[in-house]
């Protein structure tokens, strides 16, 4: 930095630019000489001295408002100046990151993209779920209650079988932190679903196809696991975090990217749903064993779902979990073998199951289970 450069000087009093000659004195002071003979010195370490480097120039400013300013466009000078300030610890994180990025923009871009993808796929879902689990369980109950109140109006409840199903469910301990409330709905869909907080709805379509009490126990265990493990809340948190992440990234960029991003988020959530189904199978099987039911019943239930799915039209089958069901069946079978059979079978379930199948099976539209 032992050299002389030309600079533009603004004195802060008028808009008249002056050509100044800048010299570095003893590595820590800038000596500025003006054409009218004026001369002054700026100590580099002084707090009132600020510097900013943009892509084509160096801007130095000094003093209180209105600040006096020097603009330097001499690239070798700028580089040695920046280096000197870095050694003096006066280069911030941002400027360092920017310097790195400018030296290899393509590599930097690829690095950022890789980081973002990794955090979107792995870190974000993990963090979102951690946060979701901090939400009190009473909130699950309130959400579920509100959703059920709204739905119940349009659902044709089979009250007699609802009472029987409740008795059947109460004979097992499936969800330690919630009290499941069971409902039977007259509908030919081979389906059942659970709302957060404990409402579990079973359609007559699936009930009528049940071959044994164990299969029903498996269904309830699966659905109760969705409730117990708070799958809805976790899924909601993940999806919300996904949108937050994308909007954070895109900020004010543009609608096209936002559209692409929206669809990416939807795709990811599809995969996420499968993961949770498998978890519901696994924990459901463990619950079955605890309640005196052979975990192999889950295999029977999944096979029932698979049979129904086979009759589905081509277009729907593409979206359904058909090849996935095979995977789930295989996994459930392996798990059942590992878990073994219960020591004291729950005999009451068979008795409680009888009133539930009293009604004749009706011709039903096949569909997949949740």
């Amino acid at each position, binding site marked *: 930095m032992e050299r002389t*450069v*030309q600079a*533009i000087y603004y004195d802060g009093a008028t808009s008249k630019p002056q*050509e100044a000659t800048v010299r570095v004195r003893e590595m820590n002071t800038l000596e500025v000489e003006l054409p009218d003979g004026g001369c002054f010195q700026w100590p580099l370490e002084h707090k009132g001295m600020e510097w900013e480097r943009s892509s*084509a120039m160096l801007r130095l400013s000094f003093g209180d408002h*209105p600040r006096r300013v020097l603009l330097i466009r001499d690239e070798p000078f700028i580089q040695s100046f920046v280096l000197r300030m870095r050694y003096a610890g006066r280069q911030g994180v941002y400027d360092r990151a920017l310097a790195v990025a*400018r030296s290899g923009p393509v590599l930097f871009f690829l690095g950022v993209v890789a980081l973002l993808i990794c955090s979107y796929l792995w870190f974000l879902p993990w963090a979102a779920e951690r946060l979701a689990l901090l939400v009190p369980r009473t909130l699950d109950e309130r959400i579920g209650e509100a959703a059920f109140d709204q739905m119940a109006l349009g659902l044709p409840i089979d009250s007699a079988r609802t009472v029987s199903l409740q008795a059947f469910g109460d004979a097992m301990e499936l969800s330690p932190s919630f009290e499941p409330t069971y409902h039977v709905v007259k509908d030919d869909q081979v389906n059942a679903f659970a709302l957060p907080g404990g409402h579990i709805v079973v359609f007559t379509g699936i009930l009528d196809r049940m071959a044994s009490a164990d299969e029903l126990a498996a269904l309830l265990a699966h659905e109760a696991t969705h409730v117990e493990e708070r799958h809805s809340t976790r899924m909601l948190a993940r999806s919300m975090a996904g949108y937050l992440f994308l909007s954070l990234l895109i900020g004010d960029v*543009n609608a096209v990217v936002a559209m692409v991003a929206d669809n990416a988020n939807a795709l990811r959530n599809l995969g996420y749903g499968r993961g949770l189904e498998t978890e519901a199978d696994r924990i459901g099987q463990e619950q079955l064993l605890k309640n005196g039911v052979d975990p192999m019943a889950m295999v029977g239930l999944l096979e029932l779902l698979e049979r129904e799915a086979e009759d589905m039209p081509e277009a729907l089958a593409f979206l359904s979990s058909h090849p996935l069901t095979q995977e789930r069946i295989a996994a459930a079978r392996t798990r059942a073998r590992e878990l073994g059979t219960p020591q004291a079978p729950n005999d009451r379930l068979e008795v409680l199951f009888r009133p539930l199948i009293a009604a004749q099976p009706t011709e039903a539209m096949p569909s997949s289970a949740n």
Partner: protein
Amino acid sequence: MGSPTPVRAEEAVYLSLLRQPAHMFLTTPPKRLAFLGRPGDLFVVLLVNMLLTFITLGLYYPWAKARRLSWYYEHTELDGHPFHFHGTGNEMFKGFIKAIGLLLLIYGTYIVGVLMEEVKLVVIGVLVMFVGLLLFIPLIIHGSLRYRSSRSSWRGIHFGYRGQLKELYRICLRDGLLTLITVGIYGSWLTIHLRNYTVGHLRYGSTSFRYKGDGAAFFLLNLKGYLLTVFTLGIYGFWWQRDLFNYYVNNLSWEHPDGKRIQFRSTATGGGFFSLMLVNVLIVVFTLGIGFAWAEVRTMRFVLEHIALDGDADLNAVVQTEQEHKNAMADDLGDLLDIGVFI
């Protein structure tokens, strides 16, 4: 420079001028506006901003915004000299916190009402929100103009805004009401009255600006633009855009205390807008948004290169007059509510 990006022809001319010794670059075309930022560099700046914002879970946003604005100012030149943005992330962060506090206050009644399931409170809350947000608009315009102008300088002289908040409220309430009554027709007058007032109170040191728009002319311009755009299935939209740009630029002047003035003049054409926008859309769509910086730089160049300054006022004779105004709350509030200030 460090960046190996290839340089386009006109860039090469500018950059070679800039690389001359200091006394040379004062001889770039007099009284011309120019944008010298390179898209690759903007891309890197935006990328670093994105990375830091992401790592800090969004907290870095105010600093990123300051850096981005700074980049645009630094690469915009008038008469061979760059503008400078003095706003800092710290100022904007403070403003951001204040703005969030203010919004919470406005949303508070509504949120409490919903949580307590009190219908009355919810209704009151909605009213407070509605009225509150409407009343914010003049405040946002006023505060944002004061902040942005005070934090902008050229050749070391700061800009400033000396409008009165009271007057802005008067215009907004009167014209807003008339706009409601006339089902939006009076909106053209509202826009022009706001522009006349706000631009008329902008300062650059000892000089000031003037905008002499006319509500009726602006309304007819929009009516013509709208009808022709509909009839030509959207094609006239680019010429409508040109008319709006021309109306903005051609009515703007820069008044110097010695009585001399600089008149701004647009040289933009409808064809120019057409190719600008068409190519920008293609760039952004085909690069899935990655080419955003390139589209952005094309726009900046187009706009600045199509504003000519006519007049013989002495740009060296301006004296520093404006005080500093560091409160960024209104600016951040406008950001949060997505209200653009620069009418």
